[in-house]
């Protein structure tokens, strides 16, 4: 760039010197251009992948921009707020995570976690809510400080817990409570047009208050006692019934054994009798006598025998008493 020159006349002589004023003016112009360019460039902004940009022109909402490099008119005409719409946020009720750890540290918030159930019992509930911003425009412009507030969560949770009995809450009803709380909470934030979607409601700890915990534990052990008693009784039944069946079987078998023995014996006896009878038939009187004598030979040795003449009277009295006579006889 040629340096601007101007002619000045000093003492009738003409000198060519650099035109400082023009030079300065030009420099100023250049400065303005640079500043202007920088100002225009300051409108470039980047929206991260999980974000959306919300652009306001003079305070009025004009457009939502997507992730990537974007341009807005520079301050003070347009401004942009970047809202993390894909991020899942969480809120804790009943406790706070002080240090995510490991090991994680928590602080208990009994004033949040103790609540009334149906039938006016008190239960302790810790809860985590996960939510997302689905409408960044509503989120920014419709509700003041929505994100920070835990109030609708508590309100919804307590309303739901108030409808359920304590036993249900402590045992089987957890899923139902999560579900109902989620629905109710979504309904509440929708009515506020908060631009939020409740992703999940998770009951963390649900247990009876410390003051009555031992009583609840006793119920649990009572339930175990019941099962134990029933098990023992079933064990008893399982013991005696098979045993009884065994004994019964034995009884029947014994009877069967007896029966076959009895019949066999009868058959044997009958056979024996038949055999003897055949023998006897061939020589009746002789056989009978022989058998009688054989019996006597077996029976009579070794016992006292008196042979007494049977007179008309008193014959038997002569030898009485029989007992001492028998004794005397033995001496």
């Amino acid at each position, binding site marked *: 760039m040629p340096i601007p020159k101007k002619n000045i006349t000093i003492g009738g002589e003409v000198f060519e010197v650099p035109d400082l004023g023009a030079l300065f003016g030009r420099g100023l112009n250049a400065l303005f251009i640079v500043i202007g360019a920088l100002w225009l460039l300051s409108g470039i902004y980047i929206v991260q992948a999980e974000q959306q940009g919300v652009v306001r022109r*003079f*305070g*009025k*909402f004009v457009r939502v921009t997507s992730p990537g490099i974007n341009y807005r008119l520079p301050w*003070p005409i347009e401004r942009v707020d970047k809202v993390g719409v894909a991020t899942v946020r969480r809120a804790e009720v009943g406790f706070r995570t002080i240090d995510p750890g490991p090991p994680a540290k928590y602080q208990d918030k009994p004033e949040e976690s103790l609540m*009334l159930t149906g039938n*006016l*019992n008190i239960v302790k509930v810790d809860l985590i809510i996960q939510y997302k911003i689905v409408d960044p425009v509503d989120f*920014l412009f419709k*509700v*003041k*400080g929505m994100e920070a507030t835990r109030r609708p969560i508590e309100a919804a949770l307590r*309303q739901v817990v108030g409808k359920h009995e304590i036993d249900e809450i402590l045992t089987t009803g957890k899923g139902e409570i999560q579900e109902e709380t989620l629905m109710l909470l979504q309904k509440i934030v929708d*009515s*506020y047009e*908060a631009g939020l979607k409740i992703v999940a409601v998770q009951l963390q700890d649900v247990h009876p208050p410390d*003051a*009555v915990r031992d009583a*609840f534990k006793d119920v649990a052990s*009572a*339930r175990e*006692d*019941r*099962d*134990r*008693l*029933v098990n023992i*009784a079933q064990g*008893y*039944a399982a013991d*005696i*019934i098979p045993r*009884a*069946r065994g*004994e019964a*079987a034995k*009884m*029947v078998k*014994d009877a069967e054994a*007896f*029966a076959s023995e*009895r019949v066999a*014996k*009868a*058959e044997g*006896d009958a*056979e024996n*009798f038949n055999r*003897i*009878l055949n023998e*006897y038939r061939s020589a009746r009187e002789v056989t009978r006598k022989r*058998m009688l004598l054989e*019996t006597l030979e077996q*029976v009579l040795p070794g*016992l*006292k025998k*008196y*042979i*007494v003449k*049977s007179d008309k009277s008193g014959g038997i009295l002569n030898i009485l008493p029989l007992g001492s006579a028998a004794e005397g006889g033995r001496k």
Partner: protein
Amino acid sequence: MKRNRTLRWIVIALVVILMTAYQVDEIDQAIVLQLGKPVRVVIEPGLHFKLPWPIQSVIFLDKRLLDYDSNPTEILTRDKKNLVLDNYAKWRIIDPLKFYVSVRDENGAQARLDDIIYSELRVELGKHDLDEVVTKNREDLMANVTTTTNEAAKAYGIEVVDVRIKRADLPAENERSVYERMRAERKRIANQYRSEGEEEALKIRAAADSMKVTIMANAYKEAQTIRGQAEGKAIDIYAKAVGKDPDFYDFLRSMEAYRKIIDTSTVLVLPPETEWLKWLK
């Protein structure tokens, strides 16, 4: 020279704009005050103009849904029970002019809402039993309070969108009695479990015992039947055999019986006429 003049105009224009323009944000609404007196309300967000200060000035009010949170208060229910209520409300400014004139700003509004909500809650809860407030129709109840509160707040340019019970708890001294009751209830349930266990166990034992008796009785019956049939059969066999010569059987059986009956302690007194002694004579 010409350039200087345009520069001058630009500067003047900028100054004028700076003095007269104002911007209303999406979250705000504005009231234009002329010498302290409200002259118009601007709700539409964007760039707007007014006469320069000090003739006209602008105040901004929030257009969003706002929070109200009270301190927990004790309220008496219809069944004369105390309940500690902690409630919150969502409200917004719908009539900025009325709002500005009557309560001025959000702090003023909070104080006014305190009064309104507390009295409406007291009225509404006075119509319900404790049990209803905690469990059954909390939702209807709150809808009623919202409606009546909203009605009362209209005078201040405020719309109450939602009044909600955040916490409804019993006062500390009642809490103790609740714990007592809970403990008693648990005790009852525990006892019930234990006696149910005993009942069940007794039933099982009794059933087992009775089953055992039945099994044994049936077995006895079967065994006796078998024995009986065997006896019958044996008798039949004997009878058939004996029937061929009953007299001989009598003799034979007697012989057998003698062998068993007579032993060494037996004393036999015999007349000499006895048949088998005849050879002694």
